[in-house]
């Protein structure tokens, strides 16, 4: 695993998130389920907790946007770049953006939202890309069954290096 240069991290372990712009391709309930599950991947392996909020000042703001969306990192239309997220910090820090020009799904076709969101939230928490092809933080998209998904050891090592282990670890 690799940490983001400068080792940025959240000072608090109870983080909030807000979905400020939904995709038109999935129901809001599906988006919320995928996002919630993506955060659980990280909370299960660390001391972090995530709470959905409707307040303006959430730590992690999530939006589906397209093309040039004002953060100096424009999306490129279908395929190519799927999403990006910012390292921990104030303002745009921690925020995750998903390319609305992609086809987002809850299954194995096109791009599974849960898998991409779980990867992006790794960046939101301070992880950089891993060179391990089996890791969630590997930069390229690869489908894995969300219903049986468990965080790979490389990513567990990474998140625990920043925030420590879970207070309630899941027994094997």
């Amino acid at each position: 695993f690799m940490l983001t240069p400068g080792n940025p991290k959240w000072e608090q372990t109870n983080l909030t998130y807000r979905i400020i712009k939904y995709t038109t391709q999935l129901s809001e309930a599906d988006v919320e389920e995928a996002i919630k599950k993506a955060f659980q991947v990280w909370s299960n392996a660390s001391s972090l907790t995530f709470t959905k909020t409707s307040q303006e000042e959430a730590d992690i703001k999530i939006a589906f946007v397209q093309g040039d969306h004002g953060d100096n990192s424009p999306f490129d239309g279908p395929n190519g770049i799927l999403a990006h997220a910012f390292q921990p910090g104030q303002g745009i820090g921690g925020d995750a953006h998903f390319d609305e020009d992609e086809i987002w799904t809850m299954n194995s076709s096109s791009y599974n939202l849960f898998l991409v969101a779980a990867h992006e939230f790794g960046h939101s928490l301070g992880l950089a890309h891993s060179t391990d092809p089996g890791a969630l933080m590997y930069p390229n998209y690869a489908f894995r069954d969300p219903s049986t998904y468990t965080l790979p050891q490389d990513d567990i090592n990474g998140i625990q290096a920043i925030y420590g282990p879970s207070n309630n670890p899941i027994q094997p």
Partner: protein
Amino acid sequence: FPVPAQEMDTQVVQDYLEKFYQLPRRGLRSQRQNSPSVIVEKLKEMQRFFGLSETGKPDRQTLAVMRKPRCGVPDSGD
């Protein structure tokens, strides 16, 4: 007119290295930064990251990786 395949490959390599490996963007580079050796070094860095042969050339395997869907966060630097 259709763009020649080699020209398209060059474009893919340039864009990829600019976005993910901090290759200075065209138009902002000095003459020195524009040298092929900079691109070769960035290509090797990319190939090393993905476990490819470090040829420093945009071979078939390297281009195949560059064309895969991926996250927009750079692989090196901030």
